[in-house]
């Protein structure tokens, strides 16, 4: 106790006199003791939360603020920015047909991922929730692509999908030569190829999430339904899917955010320059191509701010309108309905 009192009085001595009067009141010792623990709690909080706060402010908040600052300048990256242009960078971003292109590509990937991965993953999860032979192996195989790093996936697929690559050779060998295509180079096909690779890679993640969600549905519900004479499909439609809702919504949220941030696969497969030509550029590759690769760091920062705001807006809207109903406890809510 003494140790905590000493620093407090020291601290007080430097802060002026108006507090002195209050301390002279009869209840001072009691208050002093409470204040002592108060201070200690605060110090504890500061010490424990400090490092994390510093990291968060230094590596998240500060860069965002800096990006906003640089975004108001034309700046080539040398020295301090001096050429203040106000909102001009933002005006260029929103009138650039290339940027409209990347928004379309991102929207396509967001929607495509949901529509392709969602249904397939649910079906796979339902299947894998049955007691079938080799279930463990199939689960591992489906989850495997998710574990492999993006760089390896990108390099592997880009080699296989080359015009003279393994995929086309295979098609030829099995007599489907007519289906050979420039999977990566043809601007009409490339984004579908990208969607296929993304689906292949991330579907395992969805399946694992859904399987976990299925495990949490109480067995009694199925038993009761069976006793009432419900068919397998009726059970899935009326019980499993509604109760899987919260998991699906969380997965969809993660999928949307991931699709908005998509960068590495595109960058590996289509390189630094031609993603826009192939029709697979995303907001992030646009930022790198027009910011760093072009040496327009001011412009690139403005793009970063736009991406940040778009992602933030999507996340907030989704949280507000879709995820909110899950917070009250989905099971009881749904059961009541």
């Amino acid at each position, binding site marked *: 106790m003494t140790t905590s009192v000493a620093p407090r009085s020291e601290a007080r001595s430097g802060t002026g006199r108006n507090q002195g009067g209050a301390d002279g009141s009869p209840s001072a010792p009691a208050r002093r003791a409470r204040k002592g623990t108060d201070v200690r709690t605060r110090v504890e909080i500061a010490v424990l939360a400090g490092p994390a706060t510093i990291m968060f*402010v230094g590596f998240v908040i500060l860069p965002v603020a800096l990006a906003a600052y640089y975004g108001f300048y034309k700046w*080539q990256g040398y*020295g301090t920015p001096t050429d203040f242009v106000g909102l001009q*960078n933002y005006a260029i971003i929103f009138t650039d047909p290339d940027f409209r292109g990347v928004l379309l590509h991102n929207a396509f990937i967001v929607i495509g991922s949901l529509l392709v991965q969602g249904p397939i993953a649910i079906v796979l999860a339902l299947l894998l929730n049955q007691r079938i032979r080799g279930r463990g192996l199939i689960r591992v195989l489906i989850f495997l692509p998710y574990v492999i790093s993006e760089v390896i996936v990108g390099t592997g697929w880009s080699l296989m999908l080359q015009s003279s690559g393994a995929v086309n050779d295979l098609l030829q060998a099995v007599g489907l030569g007519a289906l050979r295509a420039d999977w*990566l180079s043809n*601007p009409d096909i490339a984004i579908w190829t990208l969607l296929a690779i993304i689906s292949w890679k991330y579907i395992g993640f969805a399946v694992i999430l859904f399987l976990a969600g299925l495990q949490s549905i109480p067995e009694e519900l199925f038993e009761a339904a069976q006793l009432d004479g419900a068919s397998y499909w009726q059970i899935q439609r009326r019980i499993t899917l509604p109760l899987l809702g919260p998991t699906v919504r969380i997965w969809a949220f993660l999928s949307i955010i991931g699709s908005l941030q998509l960068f590495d696969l595109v960058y590996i497969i289509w390189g*630094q320059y031609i993603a826009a030509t192939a029709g697979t550029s995303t907001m992030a590759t646009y930022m790198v191509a027009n910011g760093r690769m072009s*040496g327009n760091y001011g412009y690139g920062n403005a793009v970063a701010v736009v991406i940040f705001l778009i992602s933030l807006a999507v996340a907030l809207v989704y949280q507000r309108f879709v995820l909110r109903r899950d917070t009250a406890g989905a099971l009881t809510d749904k059961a009541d309905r």
Partner: protein
Amino acid sequence: MTRKIRAAAAIALIGVTTLVAAGCSAGSDAAGGDGGKVSMTFWHNSTTGPGKAFWAKTVKDFEAKNPNVTIKIQAIQNEDLDGKLQTALNSGSAPDVFLQRGGGKMAAMVNAGQLMDISGSIGKTAKSEISDAAFGGYEQDGKTWAMPVDVNPEGIWYSQDLFEQAGIEGTPTTMDELNADIQKLKDAGIQPVAVGAKDAWPAAHWYYNFALRACSESTLTKTAKDLKFTNSCWTQAGKDTKAFFDTKPFNDGYLTTASQQGAGSSAGLVANHKAAMELMGAWDPGVISSLTPDGKPLADLGFFPFPEVSGGKGAPGSMMGAVDGFSCSAKAPKQACTDFLNYMTEKPVQEAYYKAFNAIPANQSAQSVVTEPYLKTVLEAYNKAPFVSNYLDTVYGQNVGNALNTSVVNLLAGKGSVDDIVKTINQAAAKG
């Protein structure tokens, strides 16, 4: 009380953040004193093989001749060099001597006051034995900012065996002849031209060369200043490029073909006789030889200059070509740094440079040691060229250059028109 602690916490936070920030920028300050011992740092991009050994030996020899100077070498992977250099220049811990790529990148450094003006310190050897054209790439505002060490003129590298196989005699000198040869190669079942369009610039180099044929020297230099691509020759070059692209001369899947990495790259296709030719700078023989099955130089490699196009305003024989060189940072010790730059251009050093890099040395008296027939062809064309232009993406700066490159790739992929090239360039100019 609460407010007080918050304030204290905020102050502590700011303090720590400042400390962290300060810790980041407190790099080693390498520049030595004026009198007595001088030490310098030196950044180049040869991280392996004979190139790395060459720089180690060159520095050692220079130190032996100048006992008061010590130079610390740092070899940095080529693709990482520009980013690291920019960070170092920004934080005030720039290397004293470093690779200079010229063009818009150099202009940005000059405008930021980061480079040393070496105009007054160029030695006698360098002045008399390096061509004005080579120095030209490093001039800005009437001053010289870097010392050239090699020249990389561009043209078409081809496989003599494949040409023979297709029944082609001699090398084409006009576009009509080139188109006829391409048809012959196609008829013989050989992919005529390799292009690494994934990197964008290799495809754009076709446009550069058509522009060099269509535009006069004065148009090219004037455009570099105002970045206005209004002269009709730019559109003409686009039309010529499109006409050539429409003959479908390139390898399968060119859009996702890289230029230099692996056997599937354009250089790899030439190295493995999968394609007959490619348009590339004079560094290509080195790249190709690293990609042949046995890792040795391609025995039947040949070279011919970019064919002439009739009706253009460009002087016949003009070439595209880059210069590699080195700059001193503004803070470097002037005497020692410029001495080192001058030493790089001396004849024996330049001869060793040629042997290490298989590239054409900037010093003309050292060019006599070049033995490879293809490099001799390059030299012959280069020394006859009435005008040598640096690559347009370098000339017009990173920003416009990048946009130019990608718009040519768009044209190649059938996604854009000839007019889009100029349109895209003007859009890019607004971003910079």
